[in-house]
């Protein structure tokens, strides 16, 4: 059963606007969440993470929000740039384990 879900397979956004990518999880033991970006024919690269003791973490144009009660996190990209066009994966892990659980990915297209 999929413990981390990304329900939007794709998203298109105009350059300069905000991109919001969503992720839901089911396991309340998860306490660390990560976002990865993947270009075609390359491996995923780490983008940003958040611990469950926080509800927001920022790094430049990227901000991740965590709503523990709703078991939901989102990645905001502002402003969006054409180079942001990629597949974005969210992932979750629990401090007691050494596994990572990935969503199925959202393909973001930023239109110039």
């Amino acid at each position: 059963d999929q413990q981390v879900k990304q329900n939007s397979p794709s998203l298109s956004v105009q350059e300069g606007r905000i991109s919001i990518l969503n992720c839901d999880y089911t396991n309340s033991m998860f306490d660390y969440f990560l976002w990865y970006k993947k270009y075609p024919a390359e491996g995923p690269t780490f983008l940003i993470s958040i611990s469950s003791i926080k509800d927001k973490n920022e790094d430049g144009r990227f901000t991740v929000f965590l709503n523990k009660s709703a078991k939901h996190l989102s990645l905001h990209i502002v402003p969006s740039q054409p180079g942001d066009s990629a597949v974005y994966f969210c992932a979750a892990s629990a401090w007691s384990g050494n596994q990572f659980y990935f969503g199925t990915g959202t393909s973001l297209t930023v239109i110039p």
Partner: protein
Amino acid sequence: DVKVTQSSRYLVKRTGEKVFLECVQDMDHENMFWYRQDPGLGLRLIYFSYDVKMKEKGDIPEGYSVSREKKERFSLILESASTNQTSMYLCASSTNPGTGVNSGNTIYFGEGSWLTVV
């Protein structure tokens, strides 16, 4: 910077061949992973290893085996390749979580190996 290196970027193999995919990491990470990525299915875990000579099945281990003889090296083996194993294979590594809750760790990926089985 963490470096995870996969030995082959592109391979074409025949059905029934034995295939080896090699992966090396240079950060002394305890954990290593093999995933495959297929369109619409995301990243699916095949096997992982949390120590030398240790292995655990992931979500889709059938048709695969692994070997970890040294801490830095994790090999994925397709004993008898089949066309449904055509995919992108991703190796990754991570440390163990820090002590206590919210001591998260990060998983680092290699560049990927595109395998086509004909």
